[in-house]
């Protein structure tokens, strides 16, 4: 009876464990194993090359580090511009203000759309056909025709344009989490501060900011993880790497796999990237802990 009972318990978790083992744990371990082979993905024989894939990434693969730098650039813009913007909007909506729910509804529309849709729609809005580029039309309309650009195809502006569209898609998500965070701050604190003669800036600095640090750290970590790994938006927006100007690490991994059929190398790139991401999150987390103690 006891044994039958225990077996029944396992029946409940069995489907989940099976699927998880086959489609998560096995591939996870394979990434480690494959990263030390040179393999085209088809041939039955793999050539063991030890750590040479990793050595190649670190010492020779310029395009990989270019991609890493590009992703870092987009991430810095997302961390600052997108999150400051999201925070300001959350502050604006965290008060007695009419239409609050409609604003919230609208701001979260870009995040629920797929990256492909967002990329392709924006590609169309800022296309290269004369007189049909909406951004250039608006710039001309307000007398800044000197600022018009081939936003997506000029190497100078392509990456920044990608970053800005990324922020357009992502700010609503940060806004929602910031707003949820702001709403957990008890109103009484602000009331008490006002009675004590604090002005709006004082309450912001001494109540809102300290209490929002955990939420901000969370948003920062998730922004870094999400933005560093973003790539589908770039496929939708410019079709891919465009000679490296808009290349990011995951696009490089995809290119190693599908373009040059180097499966082992692609896995090594994935691992390297995973380690970098974990390190960044860890540093951010440690930094925030230190910051909170002082």
């Amino acid at each position, binding site marked *: 009876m006891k044994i039958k009972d*225990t077996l029944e*318990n396992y029946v409940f978790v069995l489907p989940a464990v099976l699927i998880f083992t086959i*489609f998560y744990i096995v591939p996870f371990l394979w990434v480690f194993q494959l990263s030390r082979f040179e393999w085209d993905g088809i041939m039955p024989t793999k050539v063991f090359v030890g750590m040479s894939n990793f050595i190649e990434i670190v010492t020779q693969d310029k395009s990989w580090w270019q991609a890493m730098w590009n992703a870092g650039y987009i991430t810095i813009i997302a961390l600052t511009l997108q999150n400051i913007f999201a925070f300001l909007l959350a502050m*604006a909506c965290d008060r007695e*203000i009419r239409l609050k729910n409609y604003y919230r509804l609208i*701001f979260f529309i870009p995040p*629920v759309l797929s*990256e492909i849709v967002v990329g392709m729609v924006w590609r169309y809005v800022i296309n290269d056909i004369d007189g049909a580029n909406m951004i250039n039309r608006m710039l001309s309309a307000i007398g800044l025709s000197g600022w018009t650009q081939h936003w997506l195809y000029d190497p100078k502006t392509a990456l920044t344009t990608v970053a800005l569209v990324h922020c357009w898609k992502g700010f609503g998500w940060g806004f929602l989490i910031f707003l949820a965070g702001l709403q957990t701050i008890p109103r009484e604190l602000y009331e008490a501060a006002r009675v004590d003669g604090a002005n709006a800036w004082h309450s912001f600095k001494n109540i809102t900011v300290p209490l929002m640090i955990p939420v901000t750290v969370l948003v920062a970590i998730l922004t870094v993880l999400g933005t560093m790994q973003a790539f589908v938006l770039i496929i939708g927006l410019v079709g891919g790497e465009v000679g490296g100007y808009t290349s990011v690490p995951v696009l490089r991994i995809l290119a190693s*796999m599908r373009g040059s059929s180097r499966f082992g190398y692609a896995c090594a790139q994935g691992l390297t990237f995973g380690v970098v991401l974990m390190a960044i999150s860890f540093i951010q987390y440690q930094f925030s802990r230190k910051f909170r103690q002082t």
Partner: protein
Amino acid sequence: MKSTAYYTTKKIALNTLIHLFLISVSITCLFPLFWMISSSLKTQETIFTDMSLFPHEFHFENYYLAWQEGGFGRYFLNSIFYTVSVVVGIVIISSMAAYAFSRFRFPGRGILFSVFMVAMMIPIPGSFVALYVLLNKLHLRNTPVGYILCMINVGLSTSIFLLKTFFDKMPKELEDAARIDGCSKMGIWWHVALPLAKPVLAVVVVFNALNVWNEYVLALIIFDSKPLMPLQVALQTFQGEFITKYPLLMAGLTITALPIIIVYILMQKYIVKGVTQGALVG
């Protein structure tokens, strides 16, 4: 002492400024989407010359052409099929596991649960390479089953987490009563626990549905044959082949985006909950 009128004026001015800010952001959010819909109703000749948001004549036949000739009808049904299958799979599998993790005591329970949770936090950016190899070996690549199983796995951890958190807080009295009445464990899970978990199941359903509908990279590497592709991947191939047919492309984009927007507006509450709770996991 300043008068009340001063403060009222100041407050109105501030609120107006805030509204102006919020409204301009809202317009920035909505404009590309209106532009997409408006362009999908123009013709190839007018699409780059007619810059009006409301075109003079509505060419609804673009939708018919996209649906029929562009193949979006097929891709749409594929996306629906994958989304429904994955969501049903996730709901059944993750609610069973979460229920067991919450209610039963058995050896390995703690370890198994923490493995699921740790998996949520470790980023493995190159995992699709290994998944491709795995599916090839299992002869599941370029099959709907392969894609559906992969996508069930993607949603599993978060769903188990959300459901277990809910079950942990749910009172056990009804389940105890059912047990005394001689109901089996499976029976209690299906007839008692699941109906009580409806609020959190809604979050799990909506969240995973959005996720599957919007998924791109796995579909890209798994499917070679066009008739099996979901919308997101098909859009990309459509753009490659019919680069000049912009109105049809815009109609295709609208067909892809509109269901998501409608579901989002109807299910707003659950999505917001999913985002805020899902974020707190990390």
